[in-house]
């Protein structure tokens, strides 16, 4: 068993605690994107000591509303302190707001308004090429976010400039706040859409599987001459049957009973993984 798969359940509990402490958060997308961010941070050349290292890898959380998972992962990597985040998240005057802010260690750019991250990453990737640096640039977008026109401006530019140091990940959980992504604004064949913009496209069957994600990131690193997008098919609200595949949990604040049930299930799932 990959230890990251187990850790994902510990960090889901952290996310749950952060959200309940702060009185709100985007729990559905947090839970679907956990393995993506955790796997990515296990691979990226980043650390608290290298915060200003020009050769560090860059990550921009374009779906900025899933900041609670980013906080949990940054705490795990030593950038932030989990007890402090839990205590201060969304509180009056806090630096731990409901979207990424780059005055905090480990966060490159502010986000929250959707459809910015990919274009920002195009700039970062171009800078890396100009300076002949080997760092890689990553962004994570939601599937609902792909309705933003600016995403496709960035997609076009990355393909045009053949930015093989850039990798985008789509948290493809098929749900957004109003319901199914295919009902709200259909993506149809996302693979074909990105391929048409001259991207290398990798479909990850289970985007909550650390090993499948690692294989996809390996393939992205080895892909030359074009940017890579990983379409990670995930489960919104992953971790508890209470939340899974329910659009109503996009921004649902668990009550005490729900909190206890989710915590219990997270623990059970973690123990089941450890028994494998």
């Amino acid at each position: 068993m990959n230890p990251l798969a187990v850790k994902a359940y510990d960090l889901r509990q952290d996310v749950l605690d952060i959200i309940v402490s702060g009185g709100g958060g985007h729990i559905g997308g947090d839970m679907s994107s956990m393995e993506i961010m955790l796997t990515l941070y296990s691979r990226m050349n980043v650390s608290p000591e290298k915060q200003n290292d020009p050769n560090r890898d860059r990550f921009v959380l374009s779906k900025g509303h899933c900041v609670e998972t980013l906080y949990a992962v940054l705490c795990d990597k030593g950038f932030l302190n989990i007890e402090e985040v839990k205590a201060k998240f969304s509180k009056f005057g806090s630096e731990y707001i409901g979207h990424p802010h780059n005055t905090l260690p480990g966060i490159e750019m502010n986000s929250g308004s959707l459809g910015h991250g990919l274009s920002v990453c195009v700039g970062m990737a171009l800078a890396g090429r100009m300076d002949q640096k080997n760092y890689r640039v990553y962004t994570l977008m939601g599937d609902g976010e792909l309705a933003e026109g600016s995403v496709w401006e960035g997609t076009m530019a990355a393909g045009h400039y053949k930015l093989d140091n850039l990798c985008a990940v789509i948290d493809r959980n098929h749900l957004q706040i109003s319901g199914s992504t295919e009902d709200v604004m259909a993506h149809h064949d996302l693979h074909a859409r990105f391929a048409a913009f001259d991207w290398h496209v990798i479909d990850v069957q289970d985007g909550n599987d650390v090993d499948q994600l690692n294989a996809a990131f390996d393939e992205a690193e080895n892909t030359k001459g074009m940017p890579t997008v990983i379409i990670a098919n995930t489960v919104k609200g992953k971790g508890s049957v209470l939340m899974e595949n329910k659009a109503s949990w996009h921004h649902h604040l668990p009550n005490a009973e729900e909190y206890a049930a989710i915590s219990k299930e997270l623990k059970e799932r973690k123990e089941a993984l450890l028994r494998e």
Partner: protein
Amino acid sequence: MNKIPNRAIMCEVLKEAAAKDRNVVVLCSDSRGSGSMTSFADTYPQQFVEVGIAEQNLVSIAAGLASCGKKSFAVSPASFISTRSYEQCKVDCAYSNTNVKLVGISGGVSYGALGMTHHSAQDIAAMSAIPGMRVYLPSDRHQTRKLFEALLQDTQTAYIRLGRNPVEDVYEENNVPFEMNKATVLSEGTDVLLVACGEMVRPIQEAAKLLNSQGISTGALDMYCVKPLDKEGLLKAAKGKRLIVTVEEHAPFGGLGSMVAQVISANDPKKVINLALPDSPVITGTSKEVFEYYGLTGSGIVKTVLEIWKG
């Protein structure tokens, strides 16, 4: 008659900087011709990024480059970069604190008969409302050089509006008083103060001369730094005056006139009249014809001032 537009001077300054510093990067959105940036793109192709007709992408890419140490100059028509990319300017430049200089070319009514889609009469108001965004409208080619030389030395974002057409010199080549974020006093006076920015500075300079010759002692102030507005310089120049007239190539709301009135009303209350474009699409014509029609010329300003003064 000066034949060199301010945008051509910007290109000169950026080329000089790029020769010494490979981190100076220019981005255009199919706008290198209108931005006078073709020569930069040809001379420094490795420091030039073409993004195509995609202004949102232009600004975000400029911010991404800046976050990796580049000094990004995003050059695109003022009407598009200021409002179509408004959110990218707010979030990726100002909020994320990246060193992106947003250059709005062909500002105001430079594009003349092309109509309201191509006019930027809202850019001062829009950009000034963003926390951390500075707003500069240089008045002539000499001040444009000084301003860009200063901007190359700092690391904060800013919006700079330049016009399309050459404008008459306000300053002499070897005598350009310039201090960053400080208004320049063009002339002193005791009765009336004229305040302008950008292409309206030359008309107030002319108007001040005409009014002085008619016995109305008139001062003129070049407020190229609309944000941060030079409050100290404004209050000093306004002291003892009976009337202040602001002149701008902008909608009548939220621009230089609004900001000057805010400072004057709070500190040294007196009559402030704002001469600006109307709250409607402007009449069809060249920018010169438009200025004449709305009284935004030296003689037009004189006429308005005399009416108020005598009234």
